[in-house]
């Protein structure tokens, strides 16, 4: 008889409407598992291939991770479209349903609080990139004297630091403007090029929890900002809506590592 391990995608309120879920990890069915006022969205995965050691062993296996993350995300996305959900981060394994029930009971207050917090809201991600590398100003090597060179260099440096400060200010304004139409908003560490897949420097990695009544307004503002920013030398990228990873559970600690 095959042994299974429980994989939990996220937590919803017990009354959340049920529906046809997309396939889970490894093409397993997705179940709703109730524990009093909460319910977990789960799959029963074969221990052969998805046990704890398999997750450890595959930590660097991009294609394995991609499948797992994709299915995990698809299920959560489906849920988030119809109900408030506290998404769980990978890996999210429980020996059996009993231990999952214990966890739900123990974390009941926090989970209820998180659900209330994201009820009727969705998370949007906004990233701002510097459009082009800063051109180093051509300081002519044909300056008359060493002193002229030093003065030119000093002017150049202060102009650049002024420009940098102006850039930071503009990015802050973008973040705050979007925040005005959000219920909550946080700024996370900008991703480096390896993670972002972009050569350009990331200036802002923002997450915005937007109420459904403000969705349209948020999107229109984001479109406006994206258009205006081109002229200022930024790319603005808006993605979403996502389940609220940044505004539930352990996200608090992750978000507090934000810079500036």
């Amino acid at each position: 008889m095959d042994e299974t391990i429980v994989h939990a995608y996220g937590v919803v309120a017990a009354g959340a409407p049920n529906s046809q879920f997309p396939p889970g990890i490894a093409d397993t069915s997705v179940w709703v598992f109730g524990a009093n006022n909460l319910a977990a969205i789960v799959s029963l995965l074969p221990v052969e291939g998805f046990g704890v050691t398999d997750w450890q062993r595959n930590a660097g296996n991009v294609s394995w991770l991609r499948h797992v993350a994709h299915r995990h995300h698809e299920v959560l996305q489906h849920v988030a479209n119809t109900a408030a959900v506290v998404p769980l981060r990978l890996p999210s394994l429980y020996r059996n349903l009993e231990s999952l029930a214990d966890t739900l009971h123990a974390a009941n207050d926090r989970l209820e609080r998180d659900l209330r917090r994201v009820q009727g809201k969705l998370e949007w991600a906004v990233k701002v990139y510097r459009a082009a590398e800063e051109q180093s100003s051509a300081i002519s090597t044909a300056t008359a004297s060493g002193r002229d060179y030093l003065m030119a260099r000093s002017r150049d440096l202060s102009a650049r630091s002024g420009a940098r400060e102006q850039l930071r200010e503009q990015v802050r304004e973008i973040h705050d403007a979007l925040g005005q139409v959000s219920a909550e908003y946080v700024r996370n560490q900008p991703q480096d090029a390896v993670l972002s897949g972009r050569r350009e420097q990331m200036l802002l990695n923002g997450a915005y929890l937007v109420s459904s009544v403000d969705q349209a307004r948020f999107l229109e503002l984001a479109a406006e900002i994206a258009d205006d920013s081109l002229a200022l030398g930024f790319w603005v990228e808006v993605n979403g809506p996502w389940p609220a990873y940044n505004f539930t559970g352990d996200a608090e600690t992750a978000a507090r590592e934000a810079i500036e």
Partner: protein
Amino acid sequence: MLLYAVVPADATVPETRGLVGHRLETIRGALAAVIVEECSDRLRATNDESGAFAKIICDLATRTLMLPIRFPTLLTTTSVVLAELQANQAAWRERLSELDGLSEVVIRAQWAQPDRDLGLASDSSGTTYLVNRASAIHRREASVAEITDLVRSCAREIKVLHSQRGVRIACLVGNADVPKLRDAVLSWRQAGGHRQVVVGGPWPPFSFVDQEAVGA
């Protein structure tokens, strides 16, 4: 046992067979009763079963006032069902009497250009995508407002349901008013704008079993 519906304590339940072929039984409390079917531990839960269950519920609703129970709900023994009755029957009885003579109708309206992107996060981040998405939201909100205005005079309660495409609105309507509501909605469809408008029901009040009509 598989649970079908909450009914008045003195309800007469017809002799019919349920989803798994057993006779429906009634477990009665002082203030309300529950219709059940003895069910072995195994139950197939596919679309076919849901559809068959729906048909049984709709038939039952023609014979007795009821609050349908979400499918599939299984409890192991009679005493457990009685415990549920104990805990809830007062509230259930009250809601049953509020729903006497009322049915649910679900209005679905979809546009010629489906906004199927609305439910999904997209890799696209261009401003066109954002603006289109915002327009789709406005269009949806406008439809909800129009339909709500249209049905306000016949619907006791209204609940906007989630919909990936178009809009869906559940209405609690007096049985006698159902044709009037249907006509109003279908004439609105003639006025144009929507590619498809479907009025489902009248059905038992799935969306209105709780005393507060406000959705989650």
